[in-house]
């Protein structure tokens, strides 16, 4: 009849039921047994005949197959164990993690999105790796923002693997034709946009969408922030004058200066990229990992796109969210030492470097990052600068996951962009909703 109608909901309900059955089944059992690491974090582990199950997100590296064949060969050589890598699509990864956490079928090691790490750590699904990182002399080598995101209640649950940051990707040919240079202040951004619009009215100079990450750069750029930590509790700060200034400017790009299109108000970041790849937009806020896929989608743009860091209000750089992935070891890992040797192998040295080169992401260690920033690739250097000088982080608390789940920021932007509320009203509502979740 209607097998798919409401299937997502039905699926969720079924999921809920599965959870509850499983939870009831495991209830009372000793889920507290700590997965223990061996004494020496630097030791070579030999584990012939064992298999290490690993989940890696799909699509980060367009050519991940051959990469992991190399990793597998090196891993087997070092430890004697087999490596079983499964690729999981980003879109369904969170559900799959939650499912497997509930069913006790988590892999030994997995790539975990940086905003999920504290959530899974809070749930008790991940192993604290502080001791291992210190033992192997790796503390202090990882990129600070990623360590912060992987830390939960003073334990390191996610080892930084790679990172990405958003900057503005633009069409060099269009800029050239209109005779403009990449803007370095907000005022210039408006001027450049207006000139582009006059030059080619069909093209959207700067689509303003309801996606949270591009928007947040403007809040940070005006000196505002999402929330601040006061003792143990977070308090939303979107009602600050700085946040209002940033929000007003960002939404006015569409409403006042007409640099966007009404359609863009419901675009997510993928839709922004699609519009850019189709040649409909001149500038978009986009990740360091995206130019490759944009060119792949439309080979005509080869050599016609560039990047510049998101300008701050009066010059300088506006901070941009430092996203990326951690490697986490799950409580269910049979041989934690074997799991750790995989994490160490992936997050440092040769494989971390190669992964960064192939995926367009930056390695999670400071040393490798500096090396990349010094190579002057026009599609890489601006992002590296942005990451080094202006990487920003969101509140590291499982509660922020709830705020994302409740779509508070996209909902606010949507209602401002469709002129149902003013920026001030929208921010006030969003601020209240966030505080309700923060419990402050």
């Amino acid at each position, binding site marked *: *009849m*209607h097998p*798919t*109608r*409401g*299937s*997502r*909901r*039905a699926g*969720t*309900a079924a999921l*809920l*039921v599965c*959870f*509850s*059955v*499983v*939870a*009831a089944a*495991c*209830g*009372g*059992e000793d*889920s507290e047994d700590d997965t223990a690491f061996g004494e020496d974090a630097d030791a070579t582990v030999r584990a012939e005949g064992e298999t290490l199950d690993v989940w890696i997100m799909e699509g980060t590296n367009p050519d991940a197959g051959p990469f992991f064949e190399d990793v597998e060969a090196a891993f087997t050589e070092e430890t004697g164990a087999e490596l079983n890598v499964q690729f999981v699509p980003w879109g369904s990864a969170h559900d799959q993690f*939650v499912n497997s*956490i*509930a069913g006790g079928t988590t892999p030994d090691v997995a790539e975990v999105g940086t905003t999920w790490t504290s*959530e*899974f750590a*809070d*749930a*008790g*699904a991940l192993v604290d790796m502080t001791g291992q990182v210190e033992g192997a002399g790796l503390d202090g080598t990882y990129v600070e923002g990623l360590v912060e995101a992987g830390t939960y209640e003073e334990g390191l649950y996610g080892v930084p693997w790679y990172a990405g940051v958003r900057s503005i990707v633009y069409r060099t040919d269009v800029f050239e034709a209109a005779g403009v240079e990449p803007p370095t202040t907000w005022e210039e951004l408006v001027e450049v946009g207006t000139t582009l619009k006059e030059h080619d009215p069909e093209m959207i100079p700067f689509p303003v969408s*309801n996606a949270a990450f591009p928007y947040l750069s403007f809040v940070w750029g005006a000196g505002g922030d999402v929330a601040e930590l006061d003792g143990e509790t977070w308090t939303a700060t979107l009602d600050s004058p700085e946040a209002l200034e940033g929000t007003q400017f960002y939404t006015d790009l569409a409403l006042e200066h007409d640099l966007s*299109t*009404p*359609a863009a*108000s*419901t*675009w997510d970041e993928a839709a922004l990229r699609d519009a850019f790849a189709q040649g*409909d937009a001149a500038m978009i806020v986009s990740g360091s990992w995206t130019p490759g896929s944009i060119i792949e989608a439309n080979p005509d743009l080869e050599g016609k796109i560039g990047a510049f860091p998101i300008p701050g209000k009066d010059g300088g750089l506006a901070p941009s969210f430092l996203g990326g992935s951690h490697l986490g070891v799950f409580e269910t890992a049979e041989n934690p030492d074997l799991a750790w040797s995989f994490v160490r192998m992936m997050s440092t040295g040769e494989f971390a470097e190669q992964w960064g080169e192939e995926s367009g992401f930056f390695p999670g260690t400071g040393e490798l990052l500096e090396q990349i920033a010094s190579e002057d690739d026009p599609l890489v250097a601006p992002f590296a600068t942005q990451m080094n000088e202006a990487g920003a982080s969101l509140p590291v608390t*499982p509660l922020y*996951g*709830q705020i994302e*789940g*409740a*779509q508070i920021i*996209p*909902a606010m*932007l*949507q*209602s401002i*962009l*469709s002129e*149902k509320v003013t920026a001030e009203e929208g921010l006030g509502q969003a601020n209240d909703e966030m505080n309700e*979740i923060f419990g402050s």
Partner: protein
Amino acid sequence: MSKAAVRSTGTDPSGPEQSGPDGGDPPRRSRRTGIRTGARQADHLAITRRRPWLLLTPAFIVLGVLLLWPMIRVVTLSFQDFGLRELVRGDAELVGLDNFTRVLTDRLLWQVALPNTLVFAAVCVVLTVGIGTLVALLLNQMTGVWRSLLLTAIMAAWAIPAVTGTYVWIYLFDARSGFLTGVLEYVGLVDTATTNLFTERLWFFAIATLNVVHHGFPFVAVTVLAGLMTVPKELMEAAEIDGAGPVKRFFFVTAPVLKPVFAVVTILSTIWDFKVFTQIYLMPGGDGANREVLNLGTWSYVSAMGQNQYGLGAAIAVLLTLLLLAVTVVYLRTLFKEEEL
């Protein structure tokens, strides 16, 4: 009376002879064989009495595992503070009616989700059943190749998965380059320079309605067609001879005969249209980014599942079930008179 008699024979092996008609049969047989003692008669009785239950046991076990147990769990969950942490550790705190209070005091529920759901479901059900019936009547008139062609076309609409279908409608109404948006602009209904159809509540639901009705009417058409084929030809001929036109024949002959069929398709459509999730969630802004277009399905997902608050989600599920039960009961009551039920 007879039940009481059976029960009394079962517990009292000494007096099977005094039992009623149900209990009387086995002793008569035992007299015929002539070798059973009182105790053995009682055993035999007990087995006979339990046999139906024994035969039903497998079905009950399956139902219990698949239906009853999950339902009990969902109800239990709805009284607990249950999140990801509880999922892993297995212990959950009882919070009484907290989840229900939170659900029922949510401004979004009363001002947005519920009205959207009710109006949307009502419109969709009326259109789905209406169009489905008209198409069924058309199909019933057709024969041969044309009928097969139309049936195939209908089946195609039905066979498209909801996700695919929804994306097709989204493309057709794309705010910048959609074909139907272009048509609407051409006739002067929208101005794409200033409006995004998907951010307007009415347009959003108009598009969702098209999608849901397009996907739902084939089921109604096929079911009603099956019913139409069972309407006795004699009735129609008699009505025609009595001078009834096609409209009268439909309302006074076909419709009463098909009443049970209409009852089924309407109830099923109501339940489906109440629970619509995919078609709304996938539309631009439907995932919670546009608060104005939340319906019960997306609202509960965004406020509970999207935030790993499974206790809250369970409370919503319980309330939704009760609501649908109430709707169904009221509908059935008004449709059939007491004695017909």
